């Protein structure tokens, strides 16, 4: 038999408000150190697994398919790519409405099997198509901090 008490009035329903108070500092890791320090130099780095014939961007210390160690196989991959897929966002991550919509894309970096999620800029939404060539636009060198945001956005070539 199910629980025998029921609420008769919705105004009887009570709740307890609270939160989980956490804050984090994430280190970028061994591969991340390499990637983000080169981002500060306006370059992008990938990692190559010769046996699986895959180049990962961002680089990682292992190949997920064969588990080979890739730390001695980093290489420069250039900052150009193509749009793999894209969308337009009207809401921020917490559900509030954005003042101006932003265009987010998955960009496949040329010559690799890897890619980045980033914004597209200096482009009209209607002009974007899958396969469109784009390149990274960096912040001025002295404003770069070793973060993914050192790239302002990707723009069409």
């Amino acid at each position: 038999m199910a629980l025998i008490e029921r609420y008769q009035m919705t105004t009887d329903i009570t709740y307890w408000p609270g939160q989980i108070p956490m804050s984090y500092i994430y280190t970028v890791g061994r591969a991340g150190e390499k990637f983000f320090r080169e981002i500060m130099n306006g370059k992008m780095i990938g990692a190559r697994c010769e046996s699986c014939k895959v180049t990962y961007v961002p680089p990682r210390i292992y190949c997920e398919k064969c588990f080979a160690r890739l730390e001695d196989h980093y290489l420069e991959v250039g900052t150009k790519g193509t749009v793999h897929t894209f969308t337009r966002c009207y809401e921020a991550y917490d559900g509030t409405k954005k003042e101006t919509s932003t265009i987010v894309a998955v960009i496949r970096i040329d010559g690799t099997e890897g890619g980045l999620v980033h914004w597209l800029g200096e482009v009209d939404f209607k002009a974007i198509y899958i396969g469109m060539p784009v390149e990274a636009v960096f912040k001025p060198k002295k404003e770069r901090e070793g973060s993914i945001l050192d790239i302002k956005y990707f723009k069409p070539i």
Partner: protein
Amino acid sequence: MAITEKDVAKTATKLSINEILEGKVLSVKWEPKLKYAWDNGPAIGRYLAELKEGRIIAKKCAKCHRIMIPPRMFCELCWVPAGEWVYVQDTGIVNTWVVSYVDWKATRLDIKGGVRPFTPAVIEIDGASKGMGILHHLNEVDPWKISRGMKVKAVWKPAKERTGAITDIKYFKPIE
């Protein structure tokens, strides 16, 4: 195949917290907003409402007759819906306790500066079944004179300050 010093040497790179904070290695800071509104349900809802009135209420299991505090909608031992509501007293005995020099953030209290250490305890409530305890604070007692089995009584907030929360009881203090 022993795991040796050589095997583990390069597996992890030691850092100090200062190296991270000073930016010697790159990092990303993040503070997620994790806010909740937890439904009380009928049992805790009534428990809190009674606390606002200055009373403690428990629930009795119709099968094993345990008087359970905090009250719950079903007995977790018998697996049947809990039966009637039962008022219990606001006195109890100390089952076990702690003298804490740290707060919830693991920050040290200024004990030397005269701050009283926290003395939370498990208090077995009179009127509930033996062993039924709740977590609460002890106060108005020398932290080093607390003993197992010590009789204590709840010290309530004044009626108009009570909001329907476990903190409507400020703490428990010893009774002679």
